[in-house]
């Protein structure tokens, strides 16, 4: 039951996944699809609600032009199925009998209400690995809460730590809450699969996106637990120790760069930067006189940071991002771009590794450049990656219902006319 996709060498080529998620879980199936599994996205008739999320191809807000959908449904096949209909549920049960994994992201309790909870599906297929991805988990005090990205990023503890200290906490201007849970869903599925290999048993896994976000906070929870201190957001600065902080983002002529003043083992970087500023005619004699080699991580005081801010700020503003990045490579300065989408499209490392993949969209007469595989083989072979453009709504209905489930042409037509598929 493989999906006959591009890569027989792909790691998960033998496996079949049913994906009932919407935008709250699409990434889980995408990760397994990229690893080579045959992922069948099951959409309600008319298409997944995730297809309404922009941006859109050519800014034309149609369900088959959602770039959000494209990004997280590429590599998958699509069939339509109405779970609210008896015949739809019967079809799903047939698919479950032959599937290895099932992902879903409905509100807790919905599938049970439809008679499609894990208990029922496990009767049909005891080896099934079923993963639910929800904002807070299947039970508990928040399980029926309304969630959204900003609510989840707030309750997960991320936002309090992000943003300028004199303003409200902020989120990333692209939703990550459900992506963390989706990626966790993929990891959970593979953990359960490994157990299935030795035990022969499937199981059910309940993933919480809130917990997944709370696990992105490095040592901030431990700082409360061990020191009783509540870490605060600090804008363009990064705390290095106690009251000490260093600036990490700086405006330049046409954008921003990332540069942390550091001494100790990387004093060479600071010295090289000061030498460059001096060539520019800036007066950095006081800064050059500092014994950077003896200033370890965390030793840069607020006073020193204030002293540095003026000349360094002036220096960065005198150069473009590209000049600073290239000059830093040449001079061994630990300076990095604050990359924009265009800079990433034209990135020598991504280019050299062949990260972006051109995919034909024959229905649009277009070729689109997609982000590609998240792993390669150490010898450069493809063991994961892109092989199929995102599906149109129900594009694989005939292929799967007729070709794989063995329904007849007239049966498919009846289901279609009856609104089941």
């Amino acid at each position, binding site marked *: 039951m493989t999906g006959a996709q591009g890569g027989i060498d792909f790691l998960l080529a033998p496996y079949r996944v049913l994906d009932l998620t919407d935008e709250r879980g699409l990434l889980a199936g995408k990760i397994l699809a990229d690893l080579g599994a045959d992922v069948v996205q099951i959409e309600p008739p008319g298409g997944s609600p995730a297809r309404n999320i922009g941006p859109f191809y050519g800014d034309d807000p149609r369900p088959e032009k959602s770039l959000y959908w494209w990004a997280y449904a590429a590599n998958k096949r699509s069939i339509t199925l109405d779970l609210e209909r008896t015949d739809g549920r019967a079809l799903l049960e047939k698919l479950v009998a032959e599937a290895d994994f099932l992902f879903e992201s409905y509100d807790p309790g919905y599938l049970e209400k439809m008679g499609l909870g894990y208990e029922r599906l496990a009767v049909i297929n005891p080896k099934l690995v079923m993963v639910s991805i929800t904002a807070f988990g299947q039970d508990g005090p928040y399980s029926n809460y309304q969630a959204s990205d900003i609510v989840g990023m707030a309750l997960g503890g991320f936002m309090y730590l992000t943003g300028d200290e004199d303003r409200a906490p902020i989120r990333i201007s*692209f939703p990550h809450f459900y992506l963390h849970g989706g990626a966790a869903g993929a990891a959970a599925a593979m953990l359960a699969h490994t157990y299935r290999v030795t035990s022969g048993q499937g199981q059910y896994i309940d993933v*919480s996106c809130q917990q997944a976000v709370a696990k992105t906070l490095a040592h901030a929870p431990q700082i409360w637990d061990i020191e009783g201190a509540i870490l605060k*957001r600090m804008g363009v600065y990064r705390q290095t120790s106690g009251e000490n902080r260093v600036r990490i983002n700086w405006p330049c002529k046409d954008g921003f760069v990332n540069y942390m003043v550091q001494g100790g083992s990387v004093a060479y970087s600071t010295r090289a930067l000061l030498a460059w500023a001096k060539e520019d005619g800036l007066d950095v004699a006081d800064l050059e006189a500092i014994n950077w080699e003896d200033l370890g991580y965390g030793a840069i005081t607020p006073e020193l940071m204030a002293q540095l801010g003026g000349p360094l700020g002036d220096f960065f503003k005198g150069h473009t991002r590209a000049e600073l990045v290239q000059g830093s490579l040449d001079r061994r300065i630990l300076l990095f771009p604050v990359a924009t989408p265009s800079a990433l499209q034209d990135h020598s490392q991504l280019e050299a590794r062949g990260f972006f993949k051109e995919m034909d969209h024959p229905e649009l007469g277009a070729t*689109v450049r997609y982000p590609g595989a998240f792993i390669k083989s150490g010898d450069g072979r493809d063991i994961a990656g892109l092989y199929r453009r995102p599906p149109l709504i129900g594009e694989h209905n005939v292929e799967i219902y007729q070709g794989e489930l063995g329904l007849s042409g007239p049966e498919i037509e009846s289901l279609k006319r009856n609104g089941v598929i």
Partner: protein
Amino acid sequence: MAAQPTDGKPPGGAPSEDGKPLTGVNVLDFCWVAVGPMTTKYLAEYGATVVRVESAKRPGTLRRAAPFKDGVPGINRSAYFASYNANKMGITVDMRHPRAHELMLRMAKWAHLVTENFTPGTMESWELGFEQLKAVNPGIVLFSTSMMGRGGPMERQPGFGPVLSSLVGLTNLTGWPDRDPVNPYGAYTDFIVPRFAVAAILAGLDRSRRTGEGVHIDMSQLETTLHFSAPVLLDYAVNGREQTRMGNRDPGAAPHGVYPCAGDDRWIALGCFSDAQWEGLQRTVAPDGTGWPYNPDFATFLGRKSHEDELDRLLSGWTTPWEAGALMETFQSAGVPAGVVNDCRDLFDDAQLQHRGHFQWLDHPEIGPYATDASEMVFSLSPGSLDTPAPLLGEHNRHVLQNLIGLSDDEYNSLEEDGVLE
């Protein structure tokens, strides 16, 4: 530092009757800092036997990172290290010692998986590249992750999490439009990559089991993290649009943001994506059906969108006296998505995280009880668990080398005397 004596028993509680998902999977773990250790923490939590290889001469970054017990730095006192290395065993090896290579090859025979996140080329410099590992263990999976991936002009680019947030474009998407962009908190990308890594590693182990053939997985943290902004990249590729930071605004909702609550730096996050959610907000703010929520400017979504500054100002005025937790419950009972902006203390008090058992406490010999985050996944049949604290430096030298790979007393003592285990 000399090895800590052990009583020869493996650490960790007895596996549950059904075992854990990865019971029997042996991991030789060279990972350091955060991205690797978080990856192998999942493996250890779900039953793998993970042996971390550390250097006693040059202990890793996290062992030297705050917070320390009682604020006193010490090689076994970092709660940061302790959190990300629970359930693992630790050995110390001087990789530059001439005898280290043979010892590590013996470990590689024992292992199903070797993990590392050094600059590409480091494992090869120790003659422990994939070819050498495969020669002693044909089914081995080697997982390598680096900032930029192997090969290419920037393969040796130095850097760490906060840098990668900038390189990958997430910094560009974070901040207020009238201010400079800011980094997402901390080494954010280090905590995005591990779940992709776990899925890929287990897929590699699965194929190795099916085919008998090992695989070397090369994961670029830059490339992996780009999947967390893939639609933004597509928007540029097809529409030529450069998305950038927009504070807390969302094109599909109004109001949408963070609003002040009673107390110092207390906030609530909320957003109304539908008429029903907006009506819930109206009912909550103005139960008598009059007042600013019923201003005709706000009657439609596009109306609210075009008067969003005014809407935010009025809503902020209304939320300010509220206690954040009470307001969350009030909004939620009206069907409005709302949540407290939890700080790190709030996380420990959060009713849902408590329900999930998010924080687990382990008892560490030098730190005492310390909190570590448990998995976000609840398994019906083979749950994970965090049972043992992070290893002291070199704690399991004798246990690992004698009980797991079978060195004799003489062999072990000779390694110790020769300074290999440092």
